[in-house]
């Protein structure tokens, strides 16, 4: 006796795994060698020459900020710093598809996107050092870099629901890592946004490691994108080293959300070419130099530079001039951060509640009296 076709499929566990495995082809427009592999996709991205150059400038900005931040961290002139090298397309080219009015919910590694949204460099430095002026967010539609992994997803869902209720033509977008996809909040955020068809775009930057833990130990899902499906979201795998693919995916996801179709999930395939942070992480304890070298060949600046040069839009001189400009902006940022007054203990107490309790008020008075 034969099973019905449906029953056969339901009971064929191998088939299910195979389907999962083959359901997420990777979006790529620009390959490792800087060649366009899909002309139609390039057209669909619809980036003008000026935009291409602007995007490259932002990515070079990010790389320069990374290099300077790493040095400052080594000199003890920054506090916490999570390197961004290798993730410029994943971070910057996705961010480039969003509007100033959209709300950004970043993780601790997503400093460059916040700076692109208008968070001043000196505030990023102050945030890193641990100074409250770094956390002032008056003119930026964004959230401070999230430390509690996954929390940005649920918060983005709420922001997206709010935008929808207000009838605003904007989305909320959030970034976490591959490790972040293991948190309950990750699923809850996508699920809530999906349930309310709230305009959100969720990114998981799969850079293969969560500190020392490889992506393979996070989940047995074939792709992180499969987790977006669990919440009913269109879920894309994108070459996170390809700025054009990243921009295209983010742009279309944003439009889909704005059109009222609900949230989208995007897994970016990228790599963390540096240490997890500058606070004592040694990648060679848990990964090989060969592995890092192999990924370095795929990094986004190499291929984007090649492509733009082939179109006469970019050159070494342009890049060097731009790096000089960025460096002087960073110098100014360091100077400004260095000049900020010390934090006051009385301020800490005062900012804890709108109206301090009696004991707290006594403490405020005491510290103020001591000039602290």
């Amino acid at each position, binding site marked *: 006796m034969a099973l019905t076709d449906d029953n056969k499929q339901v009971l064929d566990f191998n088939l299910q795994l195979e389907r999962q495995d083959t359901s997420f082809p990777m979006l790529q427009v620009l390959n490792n060698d800087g060649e366009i592999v899909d002309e139609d996709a390039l057209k669909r991205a619809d980036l003008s020459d000026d935009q291409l150059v602007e995007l490259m400038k932002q990515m070079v900005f990010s790389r320069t900020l990374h290099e300077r931040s790493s040095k400052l961290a080594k000199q003890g002139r920054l506090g916490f710093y999570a390197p961004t090298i290798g993730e410029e397309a994943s971070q910057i080219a996705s961010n480039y598809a969003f509007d100033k009015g959209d709300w950004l919910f970043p993780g601790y590694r997503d400093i460059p996107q916040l700076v692109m949204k208008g968070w001043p460099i000196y505030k990023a430095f102050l945030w890193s050092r641990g100074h409250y002026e770094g956390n002032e967010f008056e003119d930026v539609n964004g959230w401070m870099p999230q430390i509690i992994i996954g929390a940005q997803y649920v918060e983005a869902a709420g922001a997206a629901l709010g935008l929808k209720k207000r009838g605003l033509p904007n989305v909320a977008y959030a970034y976490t890592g591959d490790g972040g996809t293991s948190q309950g909040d990750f699923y809850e955020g996508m699920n809530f946004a999906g349930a309310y068809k709230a305009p959100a775009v969720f990114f998981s930057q799969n850079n293969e490691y969560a500190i020392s833990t490889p992506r393979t130990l996070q989940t047995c899902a074939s792709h992180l994108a499969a987790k977006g499906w669990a919440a009913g979201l269109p879920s894309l795998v994108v070459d996170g080293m390809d700025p054009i693919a990243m921009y295209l995916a983010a742009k279309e996801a944003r439009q889909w959300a704005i059109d009222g179709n609900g949230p989208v999930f995007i897994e970016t395939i990228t790599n963390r070419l540096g240490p997890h942070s500058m606070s004592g992480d040694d990648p060679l304890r848990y990964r090989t130099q060969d592995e890092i070298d192999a990924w370095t060949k795929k990094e986004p600046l190499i291929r984007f530079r090649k492509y733009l040069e082939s179109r006469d839009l970019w050159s070494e001189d342009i890049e060097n001039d731009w790096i000089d400009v960025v460096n002087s902006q960073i110098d100014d940022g360091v100077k400004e951060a260095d000049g900020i007054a010390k934090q006051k203990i009385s301020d800490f*107490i005062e900012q804890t509640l709108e109206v301090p309790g009696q004991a707290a008020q006594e403490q405020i008075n005491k510290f103020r009296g001591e000039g602290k």
Partner: protein
Amino acid sequence: MAKKTYIQAITEAQDLALANDENVLIFGEDVGKNGGVFRATDGLQEKYGEDRVFNTPLAESGIGGMAIGLTTQNYRPIMEIQFFGFVYEVMDSIAGQMARGRFRFHGTRKFPIVVRSPYGGGTKTPEMHADSLEGLMAQTPGLRVVMPATPEDAKGLLLSAVESDDPVIFLENLRLYRSIRGEVPEGYYTTPLDKAKVVREGNDATIITYGGMVHTSLAAAEELAKEGIDVEVVDLRTVSPLDLDTIGQSVEKTGRVVVAQEAQRQAGIGAMVMSEISERFIMSLKAPIGRVAAPDSVYPFALAENEWLPKEDDIIEKVKEVVNFD
């Protein structure tokens, strides 16, 4: 006896626990190859294999729930929470489930789980990492909350925690990890989970403290000695349940008390100690109890942590106030 750092003592205790009982498992974020972000489990995966020492996916609630589930198969989990500031992610497993487990199963199940985690400030970690949340734990019936101050105690208390059939929250002071060394006896030994320790004897006043503040208090006591004030220092070691006998003996001896904690005034353990003293030993007091604690704000940003945390001078000043009261 060899001098070891606080973190070496913790690694050694886990090594011995794994060797002593095949039911002991260690898991958490990055505890495997990397040996944890502070290297507290350095070399243990290599020595005992991935079956017994393993990384988890990045989810504290998963770590806590898994620990509870593993007890059904008679495992004795040592689960690591990378920083205790992330404990909120696993609060249900800890406070909702394992703390209530024995009670709800009417004693038919045991929860021999150790939750190891670094706490405290002064090491300039990013936001939300540093915190002193022992008060939350101590206010939860069903948990033992242990906060060693020395390498010797860290090792002995951790081995006791592993042997305990109750869930133990084992809080390791971040600042102490590599800043102090002390004599650590060789081999397997346990230190009782229900005994405070008089770490300095004195007659004029008692400082009751725990964790990182034990060292600050001892330093303050040395300074005060130079001025002729003879201070006793009690290290609580286990902050819940409290060893009221040891506290009482010292209070009766000196009649003047300062409690010192790193946590905010409204948090921590100080208030509990003060209320017990007021209830039980008020007739022995010659002065109101003094309190040294951090201010009542949210845990501060890294750059100001050291200024915000209570200091030796704060303790000295408070002890003098209490000693000079009449």
